[in-house]
């Protein structure tokens, strides 16, 4: 199988910072969240990833979710109050 490498951006909604990632279509959403969260010293379990209004689900591959090169995804905190 030929895996095509592409780039996309992930924005940190809490800081406005953006990382550019190199990945392929078989990478999962969880891997994207983990990479970004680790880079920003965050707990990946506390975040969700969105593309527009769509929540990108953890185990899905980027190919399955329709993410494409040059997309800008956003890492959104998932807070709990008590």
């Amino acid at each position, binding site marked *: 199988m030929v895996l095509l490498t592409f780039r996309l951006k992930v924005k940190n909604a*809490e800081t406005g*910072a953006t990382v550019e990632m190199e990945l392929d279509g*078989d990478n999962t959403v969880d891997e*994207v969240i983990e990479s970004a969260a680790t880079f920003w010293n965050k707990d990946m379990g506390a975040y969700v990833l969105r593309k527009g*209004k769509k929540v990108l689900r953890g185990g899905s591959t980027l190919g399955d979710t329709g993410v494409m090169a040059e997309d800008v995804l956003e890492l959104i905190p998932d807070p709990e*109050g008590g």
Partner: protein
Amino acid sequence: MPRPKIVRETRRRPVERAPPPRDSLAPHEWLSDESRAEYEKVLASGHPFELYVSRHAEATMRSHAQAEAPRRLEVMGFMLGDVCSWRGRAYATVRDVVTTDLDSTQSKVRFDRDALPKLFGGLDGTGFDYIIVGWYHSHPGHTCFMSRTDLETQRTMFDQPYHAALVIDPLNEDFKAFKLSGAGYEEVPFALTDALAPAGPARKKTRRLRAQSFSPRPP
């Protein structure tokens, strides 16, 4: 399969901008005497407040909390704005807030998992390049403080120096802002201002939301 590789980071620097003018500022009507004294102290110092909240954002948060107060349900949302700097001092502005349907009880609140698309639509509808500068939630009848859960959320997600947590008690009419401080937290003085407005689309969206769900009451 190789892991995603981060090849570059672009950081957003604080905008160098004068804070909202003094004649646009006011303390929140629900401040305690102690909080009001801290507000006056910052005002007299001539230095910027650490946090400025637009009248529009305040009214939306308060109305949201009041709408669920009769059932004593907590509410929650994000505060959207910008991080600025003026003469070496950083401050945050809250222009607007967004929320969605909640999974809420009298002592816990989260965004409903199925309602995240609605939250994301709200973010896209703000009409400006926001930063989530903090979050708000309510403690109906429990006074304003940071619970263990709140503190964990703050540490995990809102750990930048400008990140604030606004806590509203709509039954006791209490309204406080907090930030992390060492291993705990501290109350921070904030100012309401008329000088910050949401972008056009957000104003329309918020009006519609309030008309459907809230019963806003002027402070």
